């Protein structure tokens, strides 16, 4: 009985093969970086929304659903991809008297929302600044549920934050709402909105 044993030795790469390999790796890495950059720029792309009548302008995420026809806000954008709650940013303007304070505006918002949102309650209230203007910041939570009674959805706990700043007889309210577990993760969207908010 004869047994054949095949023994192979790896031949060393030629110069061309070695550099082709390096080039392929570099190219792949470059494409990956380009892809990530493109993705990030796309995800972080913004568009400008403004309301000349109220004198408010801000940068909001692009490719979010923009609504400028609401009765109680100047504009509102919602992330269509977010699940289960559509991350919401909105800017509203309330007409107030000369003696109004940000706290008064927050009180009005709380009274209004208590009758509209299930289990609405205020969590905290703190002083803040919007650029050089004094502002008031309020964090709150409520339960959101599907309005269409034909659909079965579990209620969601929504956390929200309002920042109120007074400009003459206008109170500008900037709002961010997110499902409670993702609230902190997407808070930077709110901060970005505040950074780009112009009241003129």
């Amino acid at each position, binding site marked *: 009985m004869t047994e054949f044993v095949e023994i192979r030795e790896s031949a060393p790469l030629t110069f061309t093969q070695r550099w082709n390999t390096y080039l392929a790796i570099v190219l792949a890495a470059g494409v990956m970086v380009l892809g990530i950059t493109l993705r990030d720029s796309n995800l972080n792309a913004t568009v400008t929304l403004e309301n000349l009548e109220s004198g408010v302008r801000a940068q909001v995420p692009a490719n979010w659903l923009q609504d400028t026809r609401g009765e109680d806000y100047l504009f509102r954008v919602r992330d269509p*991809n977010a699940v289960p709650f559509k991350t919401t940013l909105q800017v509203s303007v309330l007409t107030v008297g000369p003696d109004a304070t940000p706290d008064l505006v927050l009180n009005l918002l709380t009274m209004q929302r208590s*009758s509209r949102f299930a289990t609405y309650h205020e969590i905290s209230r703190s002083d803040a600044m919007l650029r050089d203007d004094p502002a008031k910041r309020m964090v709150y939570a409520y339960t959101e549920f599907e309005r269409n009674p034909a659909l079965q959805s579990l209620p969601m706990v929504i956390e929200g934050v309002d920042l109120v700043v007074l400009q003459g007889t206008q109170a500008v309210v900037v709002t961010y709402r997110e499902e409670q577990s993702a609230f902190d993760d997407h808070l930077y969207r709110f901060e970005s909105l505040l950074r780009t908010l112009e009241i003129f």
Partner: protein
Amino acid sequence: MMANHLFRRLILCAGLLVVLAGIGLPAFAPPRAAAQADPPLVELNEDVIKQATVFVMQSFLVSGQPMISCIGSGTLISRDGLILTNAHSATPSEACPSDVLVIAITVRLDEPPIPTYTAEVVDASHGLDLAVLRINGYLDGREILPGSLELPFVELGDSLNVGLDDTITIVGYPTFGNDPVEVTRGTVNGFTAEARAGDRAWIRTSAVIPGTMSGGGAYNRDGQLIGIPTIAPARAGGEAVDCRYLQDTNLDGRADSGDHCVPVGGFISALRPSRLARGLVRAAALGIRQGEISATNPAPSQDGEPVFSRLFFSTRVNEVGQASNVVGSVPAGTTSLYLFFDYNRMEDGAVYELRVSVDNVQDPTYSLPPVTWSGGRRGTWYIGTAGLPLRNGLYDFRLFIEGREVASRRILVGGGPADEPAFTDIIFGLLDANGNLVGTSYVLPEGSAIQARFNYRNMQPGTPWSFVWYFEGQELTRDTAAWDGDQQGTRLITAAADFLAGQYRLELYIDGALSATADFVIAGAAESARAAVFGNFRFATAQAGGAPGGTIRADFPAGIDRLYVFFDWRLLAPGTMWTRRWLVDGDVLFEITEPWNAPPDGENFFASLAGLAALPDATYGFEISIANVTRQSVSARVGLGQLPVGTFASAAGIQMTGRIIDAETQEGIPGAMFIVLNPEYSVEDFLWDQSQVLGVSMADSEGRFQIPVLLPRGTEDDPLLYSVLVQAEGYLPLSADGIAVSEETQSPVEINAALSRN
């Protein structure tokens, strides 16, 4: 080598798939719509109708515990939560104490309704037993923002187009809310005529409808609401009613006969035509209600039992609702027969009933089950059958009030056309200088002579005949003579007297038997042989001390919230029945018939409309009738003078539903967003602007979605093309253009989207 090729092909295919997914080509399951041979343009959609049917509960609190007092069904007639139902099951009464009106809705078609909302009564007619409710909050007390509700609803159809033997579908809740919404089918087997509502005051059906379905809906084949199943309300102190003891309302630890009993009634066979609800519905949709009216002195109420008297039959009703003839028998083949009678001490909402037996066998076809009275306190009424052949036999008509028989009358149907002498078609007027009868009407001015013209046939010379004139129920004059005219023709008789304002009647007899009768009203002064009763009409936006205030004109700017009409009147006797109507763009919103309770002469009588917010732009009409004869019609414009286009939401459209699933696991993706664009936009045009969006729905815990607005239809030749997008975090988005919706598209269109992870 082969393996290498295979690998390359796999890579190529995978790349192509990625590219396809990346550019967003549609990967939808095709819309599913049942194929059917020659479908009607829009077919009855049972699912939508079931979802639009609600369960209405009145509840009252005992020591803080909610107790149910009355129940019924109702139908959503607008997206924002207007509900049409019976007045008796939605308005508080002795039998139905109520603190809260609870609306339970159909969430799953095969499950009982779920209490979800509270509602308020916008307007109700106890006579017609119809009410319009508006959902005004959630059960936990939260308010509902205007326009935020997007509920399934149905449209009112034209109940006058319903014919004998038409198939109808009745939808409602069969029990106390323990069972799912139920659908019953039947045919139209007759119509019942009533004064003021005409030949089709009631639609009769062969369907067996439980009493709890009262207030629900009856639908034609197009899925439009054509009737409201209606059963008489329960009476707390009246006849024993079928009811159930459900709760321990007296808190004695037992639910027994000492507790409140929830009435369920028996079975329903009568439907109130939807046209009688149209005014209520339009007023509620427009946010208009009746405003204040001049203070008057209501007639003192007369104590005692209600009375029906002077019963007679007629086969024809004239244009003002009076009997054209009086018959003692009718030939075979007769299709219309009306029982006329006078009534007194009645009350709107009282329960009355007509039982008809033929040859001593009760026949439900010609009977009217217990229903609510809508004729007011006193007057002349009729009830009968129209458009339905009467079979030969001896008919007994028996009238009941609150379960007690109060009057009856018998008539023979059969044989050939009678050649007996008869008088018909009385009308009244004045003679001009040339001896011609002018100003013929049933409302005449004050004067000293009144002419009555009537037709006669088969009269023989010498036949004794007589006439009797009455004023306010008292005999004025009577005369008997032998007939001295032709066999047939027209004759005038004259009554000379000082005709004061009030209500009159003429009766004509042949050989002692009543052959014709008619009522007329004397009111106003003569102006060109006509009665001038009302005048000096003015519209205003306010009243101050009973006089016009604010802006006085007939053309108002948009935004006013009240509209008053003022008028003067003369020679109108207290107690005369008069009708006032408010119209918007020619459609009647409110119609009220009641006795005149002001002095005979006066100025600045006013009635008004009020808007919940501002009165919508439209042309507002105001009409006054006496004895069903329209005396005056005036109008005023507000804003543009016509209602905005699309004021009344249409339920004609298709529903888009479906499921969004993970392509790999086939499980639903909760929270995924389904967007339908307005038909003028394609996916490529979409700029993520809400104004381009027709409807959005978030998938529920099972991945199901339902676009909350109905998609308008195009035509067969030019269908509307819709574009849709589906988005969810962690998944590649999907989109598709060109989903066609035409008049033949079956609703709902179901779209299933499978998303791939990115």
